[in-house]
């Protein structure tokens, strides 16, 4: 294994949310708002009516496309509102489970039934790109893969949700990984962990010593951002380059998050659908950073309250890691399946500033893990020359944010590339240089 070149060494700030190694549980919130667009390509139709009684884990929406996965209620109570793109449930705080949730005994080797079980449990990859797991497994089965990589790198600053999940549930993760390996038909499975979590590797290996799962092993990788990006991870472990996330199957690799492996175990062994996940609440503006089991659809404000509120006003609140997450505009925003963290950041940490002219220092080239030319791509996109941007392989960008982090001129490289990749309609305005200058 060769450590990947470039990337960044970032101060990780993980200690803040590691003061307690327990994953705390929230009481059920008064309202949960489950959004229907939990994964790309989801076309969902509600299958409950307003006023209907639901339990925890009741299916409330199902997909019409083969790629979409159904949604489940994360609280018991009454369906309060079925809105445009969301279902709001008023909790009765009884937390009674749906009667259909019971352990089942589908072996992972029975691929078709197992994959259908995962689909019915609503499992998507619990990472930045939440693609439906059953779809990935079917493709992996069809194309044939050799390695399942379970991604426990968590290379972004502040995030500790996967770390604590591995510390608290190593056996479940090992078993879930073995199930994934069986279902995908891969020869081996590797749980990749960064070197700042060596105790996790030790724990997984010692548990595996008792479990005797032969083809699953934990592997230590150097601590470097973005080690946890799927393509970078696959390249470090197998030495093969993938052109896009879909291309990973072609090189024979399936990359899923550890949280996904855990929920696969829960779905297969306990029949529990995916209605909650671990979320890190952290950042210098939060009084008591911690990790929480959060029901999908809980408003962000509840999480902040569980962390004892704000110590001081944050400049921005982010769902996800600081380099790839999205800033939210309201504390009512619900947690979705891909939300790994809620971070409240002060201005002295974000170091955002007014954009200045590019001085062509070339630092963006030196940190790009995909060896792209961010400077040239940005210039091409701003001149609306998408053909040239395509020649410089804009499609290979993983949007890890290294270039925009290092840029001394604070050029919003990632948003520019994102907008260009999403095939902009003519009216989408790409931020031009010196827009914000006082003229």
């Amino acid at each position, binding site marked *: 294994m060769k450590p990947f070149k470039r990337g960044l060494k970032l101060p990780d700030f993980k200690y803040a949310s590691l003061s307690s190694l327990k994953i705390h549980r929230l009481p059920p919130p008064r309202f949960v708002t489950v959004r229907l667009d939990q994964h790309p390509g989801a076309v969902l139709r509600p299958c409950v009516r307003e006023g209907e009684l639901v339990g925890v884990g009741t299916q409330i929406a199902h997909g019409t496309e083969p790629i979409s996965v159904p949604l489940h209620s994360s609280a018991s109570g009454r369906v309060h509102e079925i809105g445009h793109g969301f279902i709001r449930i008023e909790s009765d705080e009884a937390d009674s489970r749906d009667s259909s949730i019971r352990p089942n005994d589908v072996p992972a080797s029975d691929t078709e039934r197992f994959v259908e079980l995962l689909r019915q449990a609503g499992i998507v990859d619990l990472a930045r790109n939440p693609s439906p797991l059953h779809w990935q497994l079917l493709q992996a089965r069809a194309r044939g893969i050799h390695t399942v990589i379970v991604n426990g790198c968590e290379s972004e600053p502040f995030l500790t949700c996967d770390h604590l999940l591995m510390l608290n549930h190593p056996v479940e993760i090992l078993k879930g990984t073995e199930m994934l390996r069986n279902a995908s038909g891969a020869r081996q499975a590797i749980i990749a962990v960064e070197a700042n979590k060596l105790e996790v590797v030790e724990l997984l290996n010692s548990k595996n010593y008792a479990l005797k799962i032969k083809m699953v092993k934990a592997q230590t990788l150097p601590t470097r951002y973005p080690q946890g990006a799927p393509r970078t991870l696959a390249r470090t472990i197998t030495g093969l380059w993938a052109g896009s996330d879909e291309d990973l199957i072609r090189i024979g690799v399936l990359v899923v998050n550890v949280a996904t492996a855990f929920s696969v175990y829960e779905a297969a062994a306990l029949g529990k659908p995916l209605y909650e996940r671990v979320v890190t609440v952290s950042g210098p503006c939060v009084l008591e950073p911690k990790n929480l089991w959060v029901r999908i659809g809980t408003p962000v404000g509840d999480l902040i309250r569980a962390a004892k509120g704000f*110590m001081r*006003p944050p400049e*921005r609140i982010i769902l996800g890691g600081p380099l790839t997450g999205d800033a939210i505009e309201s504390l009512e925003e619900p947690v979705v399946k891909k939300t790994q963290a809620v971070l409240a950041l002060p201005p002295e940490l974000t170091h955002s500033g007014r954009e200045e002219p590019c001085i062509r220092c*070339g630092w963006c080239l030196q940190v790009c893990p995909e060896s792209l030319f961010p400077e040239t791509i940005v210039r091409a996109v701003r001149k609306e020359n998408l053909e040239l941007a395509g020649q410089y392989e804009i499609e290979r960008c993983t949007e890890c944010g290294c270039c925009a982090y290092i840029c001394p001129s604070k050029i919003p490289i990632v948003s520019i590339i994102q907008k260009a990749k999403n095939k902009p309609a003519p009216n989408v305005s790409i931020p031009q240089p010196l827009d914000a200058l006082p003229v």
Partner: protein
Amino acid sequence: MPFRSEPKLVFHAKPHRHASHSASNILWGTSAVLLLAWLANGTRYGWDTLRIPLISATSLLGFEWGWQVCVANRLMPFGTISNASCFLLAALLTFLMPPTVPWWILVSGALLTVLFLELFGGLGQNIFHPVLASYAVLHHFFGSTLANGLWTPNVIAIWAGGIFLLLKRWIAWEIPVLCLASAWIGTVLLNASFTWEILASGSIVLGALFFATDPATSPMTKNGKVVFALLAGFLMALFRKWGHDLESVVYVLLMMNGFVPLLERYRASAPEGHRS
């Protein structure tokens, strides 16, 4: 007591963490280092130490302001001027001037610098280093006036300033290190005698540490930087053997500036196995 009121949240583009450096900090810092290195000439140059940078900085600022107002139609161009690029260019221009230089040469040098910067599209867009280009023009017209004064800046101060920039990582280490190494090897080979004197030559050291490392006019890729530096160093040694010290550095660097787009065509590291 926790903070209770609702925070004001607005949309922000990602990422939400940035490095703490900024382009204007780097430009201000480099200008300050250059100014300090220049002030080390005080014992030899006397009052000219203050006269030259003052005239070049004020005239450069004035011309830049005039360009922004009259040509670029910005009424109050504080934004473009506050990033110290004018001061950096003025400091670089100062370093190339002999102590007895008349004021009108400084003013016309400043005008040419602004033209060579702005006609190509402003900071970061210029192909040729504006100060070197304006020196080349000045040297063509007023060569005899420039040659009258004895040009001897303090080499130790230049070295100190350059090493400070290297330690701060404001300049890429490949360019000065490889440029000086190849210039030294070139001198040793061309003269067939072992000598360190090139590392004490003010013009070569100044060119390698402050002019060749200008980010806008040097390649962005690592391989490009290596080729750029090696070629520039060797050509400096070659030109210097049959020409004047300072002029050879100026013309070699201008020539190499022209090669930058060519050098950037070669990728730093093409992803192995992935060429679709």
